[in-house]
């Protein structure tokens, strides 16, 4: 493999934001995640929880809740607005003000006809869902106190609202409050504070389950308005509840960072009378868990420690594999760093600004993608609403930036930006693929996630969230071919400088190589598919986010994910299932002759901490951008004080 000088870069202070809400869409198996800075991310459960889309947020946004209505995603926040998202184009479709003050909760009914929002002024507002918009229908009876949580009965006839110290059941026909359930306050010091009912769930048999700030999960009978059972789950608050589709399992998220599971079982085997029994506790978070989801085979949770954790419920999964592993998604599945190879510059993308060794800030809107040209002369970035291109001059350590003002109006926002290798072309992708200088446009359906340009400037590859990869011929300005659709989306791709092979890494850790000129998979790729990849490679739970090549050795491919970086040598044989996968250290200890027998194509290196970016520069030096998780944890909000034995 050779030796490299490594530049370890740790000054990229990437700080993810906390997860505030989760919502599951069963038909398409998508999980929507809302973060506190207003970003909405879509994860695909079927595709190894790959982060398919990221819709950046705004400065003022304070998203509190998410709701799916069919294929449409709505969110509501403390700024009093309901936002519908355009998932094809990765942006917001429109916002509508609910005129009720800050909105605490949003929920849709099972029939998909109405949305209910709970507001600060004590009203539950009903909105009718039309084809292209939502329209305000009416208010339910106004109550004293703010409405913190809502849940619709599966039949759509009743809504339960959790407020301060009290739970109200509304009849949606008349709009009046039918029942009032009083929640008692905690013991001790919490007696003086009102009890906040953070979350409620309405089951089809009329049971209401509520989680409140006294740390109790209470089961109520809505017909008689009485308390059935009360469980003290934690000393701190119970922040969120989620019930499975078949209503037999309940997930409870607490301030401690624990997720507790309740199941609807009969105490004596064989008997008919069932009740909710506390079964398991999962301790996968360090800070408050603010959102849980009971997806059928797993419990998904997210909170203030910014990690998206998937804990599979192994009693519902038959075989052991990727689906049964505990997943912890910390870094985004896209690149936040671009590198100008020839000029030796690094561009860091933050939500609010870009850093290119000089501070360069934007303002209100968050940046969705950015790129720097290989020669270091151009910077481009795009927010949700605008696109900016800047010309850089680096003279004697002074960087001056000139804005290019006359941009064609078509360039409103972009999902991906890519410079060609000679910096003469800028490729901007949104739903339309646009070439700038000279201009011409092609259309495609879904938003494009990834772009890769070839070194000679002839080819451009684009991948979108429908798992389609298209290759365009830039000389003729026409689409060249489409790569056969793989079951999993592409997480990173690049075109080889000399052979013009498109190398793709998928979310399920499969590697494919496609020859652009011959319009077919290469022999090496077929060999990999036949041979199969090593199990240790396939069991990695973070996707590869960057692929580059070695200028000195055309057979080398450099790629990395969060915990390792790897150089694949295409001349060496592929590893067997039984052979040692991480064999670099053993090889080093062997004599020269022995090494050739045992070495295989995958050379893995796990020395570095959590990686954001790895690039091989011209002079055989390696630039490694690390972001240790401990630094992220040190900047999070305060966790609760848990007393552990022997500390």
């Amino acid at each position: 493999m050779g030796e490299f000088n490594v530049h370890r870069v740790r000054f990229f202070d990437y700080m993810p934001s906390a997860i505030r809400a989760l919502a599951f869409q069963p038909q398409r198996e998508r999980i929507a995640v809302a973060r506190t800075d207003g970003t909405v991310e879509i994860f695909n459960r079927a595709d190894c929880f790959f982060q398919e889309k990221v819709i950046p947020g705004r400065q003022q946004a304070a998203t509190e809740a998410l709701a799916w209505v069919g294929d449409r995603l709505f969110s509501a926040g403390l700024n009093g607005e309901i936002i519908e998202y355009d998932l094809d184009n990765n942006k917001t479709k429109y916002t509508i003000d609910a005129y009720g003050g800050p909105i605490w909760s949003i929920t849709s009914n099972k029939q998909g006809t109405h949305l209910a929002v709970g507001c600060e002024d004590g009203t539950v507002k009903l909105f009718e869902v039309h084809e292209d918009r939502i329209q305000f229908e009416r208010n339910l009876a106004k109550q004293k106190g703010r409405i913190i949580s809502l849940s619709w009965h599966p039949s759509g006839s009743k809504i339960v609202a959790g407020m301060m110290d009290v739970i109200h059941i509304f009849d949606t026909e008349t709009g009046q409050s039918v029942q009032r359930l009083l929640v008692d306050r905690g013991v001790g010091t919490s007696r003086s504070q009102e009890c906040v009912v953070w979350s409620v769930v309405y089951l089809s048999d009329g049971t209401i389950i509520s989680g409140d700030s006294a740390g109790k999960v209470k089961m109520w009978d809505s017909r008689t308005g009485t308390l059935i059972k009360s469980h003290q789950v934690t000393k701190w608050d119970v922040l969120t509840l989620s019930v499975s589709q078949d209503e037999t399992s309940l997930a409870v998220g607490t301030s401690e960072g624990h997720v507790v599971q309740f199941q609807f079982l009969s105490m004596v085997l064989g008997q008919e009378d069932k009740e909710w029994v506390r079964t398991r506790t999962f301790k996968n978070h360090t800070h408050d868990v603010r959102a849980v989801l009971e997806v059928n085979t797993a419990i998904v949770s997210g909170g203030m420690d910014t990690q998206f954790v998937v804990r599979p419920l192994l009693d519902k999964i038959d075989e052991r594999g990727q689906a049964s592993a505990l997943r912890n998604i910390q870094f985004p599945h896209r690149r936040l760093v671009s590198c100008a190879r020839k000029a030796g510059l690094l561009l860091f993308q933050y939500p609010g600004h870009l850093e290119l060794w000089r501070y360069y800030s934007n303002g209100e809107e968050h940046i969705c993608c950015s790129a720097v040209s290989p020669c270091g002369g151009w910077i481009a970035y795009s927010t949700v609403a605008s696109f900016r291109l800047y010309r850089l001059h680096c003279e004697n350590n002074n960087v001056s930036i000139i804005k290019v003002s006359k941009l064609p109006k078509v360039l409103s926002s972009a999902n991906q930006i890519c410079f060609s290798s000679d910096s003469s072309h800028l490729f901007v992708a949104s739903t339309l693929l646009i070439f700038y200088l000279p201009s011409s446009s092609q259309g495609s359906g879904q938003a494009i996630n990834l772009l890769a340009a070839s070194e000679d400037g002839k080819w451009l590859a684009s991948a979108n969230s429908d798992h389609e990869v298209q290759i365009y011929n830039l000389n003729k300005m026409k689409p060249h071919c489409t790569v056969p659709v793989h079951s999993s989306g592409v997480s990173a791709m690049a075109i080889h400088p000399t052979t013009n092979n498109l190398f793709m890494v998928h979310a399920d850790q499969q590697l494919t190589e496609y020859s652009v000129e011959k319009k077919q998979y290469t022999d090496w790729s077929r060999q990999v598919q036949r041979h199969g990849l090593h199990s240790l490679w396939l069991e990695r739970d973070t996707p590869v986010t960057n692929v580059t090549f070695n200028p000195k050795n055309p057979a080398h491919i450099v790629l990395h994910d969060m915990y390792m970086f790897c150089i694949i040598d295409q001349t060496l044989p592929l590893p067997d299932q039984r052979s040692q996968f991480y064999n670099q250290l053993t090889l080093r200890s062997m004599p020269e002759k022995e090494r050739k027998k045992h070495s295989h194509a995958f050379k893995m290196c796990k020395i570095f901490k959590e990686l954001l970016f790895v690039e091989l520069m011209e002079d055989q030096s390696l630039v490694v951008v690390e972001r240790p998780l401990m630094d992220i944890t040190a900047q999070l909000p305060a966790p609760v004080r848990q007393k552990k034995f022997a500390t």
Partner: protein
Amino acid sequence: MSTVRQKTEEQSQQGQEKSSADQAGLIMCEYERSEQRTAESTAESPPTLIGPDMDSMERPANPIHHILKHKTTSNMAKLQRGDPQLKSEKQVKFGREISESSEDEGPEEVAFEESKSVALKSAEEALRARRREKELLKEKRRKKQLFFQEQKKKSLLSEALLEEFDTVPQKKKKLSVEKEESKNEEKEENMQEIKSQKASRSLQGNCSVMRVKDKAADESLQQSAMDFIRSRLYGPGKDRTTNAELLSLEKKRGANQGAAVQFVNKKLGAEQKAKAEKCNKRFIRKQKLIPS
């Protein structure tokens, strides 16, 4: 003597007969009374007391007790003789003992007078107190009435000032605390209140009138909502610790055990180090360890 007194008091209060020979004996030893007195006080035949001459002795300090005890001895004597009227008489007697004895003897009358005066005084005191309270309440009501009148005058005045100030340029000011707590429906009321408050303030100092804009109100609502969440999760009374402590505990009990993060990671321990530095400097200066 005191024990005997208590016993006889009990007897008189309860109205029970005690025909114990001990008691009679005790009384006879301790008390002397002339036969004449007993003859005067009671209608029945006086008992014969064995004891030293009464006249030579001093009068006992408390005449009432003395009398009561004496009465019981006479009753006991009657009992011995088998007087049938004794019981009923005794009961009646114990009810009216004080008043009967007051007829005859000086000290008894004085005693009654005293208690009468005491009772009268307390009644008068009560009356006086009630009168005082009534007057106080009246005063309070009067003050309140005055205050409300003045407030009313003030508010009227402020409207007039506002009309004046219509032409004056308006400066921006911070919203008052009451504004943050208001809801949308009460916005207008609050706006008027604030206007009046600010106008009244402007009378006093160099303040100017400001109009509350709608956007500012929305932002403040959002801010108050966020403050509510923050106070509920991170406010006082919630048992929270620092991230540094969390990481240090993990290091203490984890697989690769090491020192607390404040000592390892320079950024985390920076504040504490700075504090320690300051403390050290202050200590050195105070103790004058370094000769200056």
